[in-house]
């Protein structure tokens, strides 16, 4: 008994559904896509974190210069 992943295919000519096992090629592609997505998402999250850290640092420096929270918010 294999536990091969499946997909659901809807034929629009007659609205029938078929559950089909993925081919080896499709499984490899799916794994590759997931790997690429993980790399991309990790880079995106790191960039967002760096951006948030830079923003917090800039706001702290503005506060140290004497700007009020309302004045800092007005700059955004």
């Amino acid at each position: 008994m294999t536990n091969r992943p499946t997909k659901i295919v809807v034929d629009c000519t007659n609205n029938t559904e078929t559950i089909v096992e993925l081919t080896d090629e499709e499984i490899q592609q799916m794994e590759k896509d997931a790997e690429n997505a993980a790399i991309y998402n990790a880079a995106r999250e790191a960039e967002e974190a760096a951006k948030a850290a830079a923003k917090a640092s800039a706001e702290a420096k503005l506060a140290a210069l004497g700007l009020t929270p309302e004045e800092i918010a007005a700059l955004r």
Partner: protein
Amino acid sequence: MANTYMLIAKVTVTGTQSNIQFTNIPSTFTDLLICHSLRTTRAAYHESIAMEFNGTGSNRTYRRIYGVNNMNIDNGAFMYGGQAAGNTNTPSTAFGTSMVYISAYAASRAKIALECGGSENNDTNTLRDMVASIWNDTAPITSITLTPENGGTIQANSTAYLYGIKNT
């Protein structure tokens, strides 16, 4: 403006499925609209859905506005086909909701797909987005594949509807 909407096909997922494919889409409409409500097995609050036309991952680009904790923009060689709930999204009855509008899908020029989506959860880690994707290909769209981006599977009771739209 569109003045007729016709349901072409609908699907309710049984078991867990790697993707949903609409095949043999008739070329008799002007535009297409996909509405779906999906939940995936991804161990996260949300999952993005990748979209392919005619079974090819080539010639795809997107521009996106999205928010997780804050608002961001990005772009890349990909097409987004909506947002789904991840498996840590609670309650277990929570799903994502998305719409994808594809104009002039049978025309012999590049196709644009406009998507907006999010999940039924107010957590700050849940991604919501608006995306404009382009498939730079002159072939008419005859099939659409919706796949969880991070390799998870689509859970049972997820639904997807494909509508054809005519402007006359």
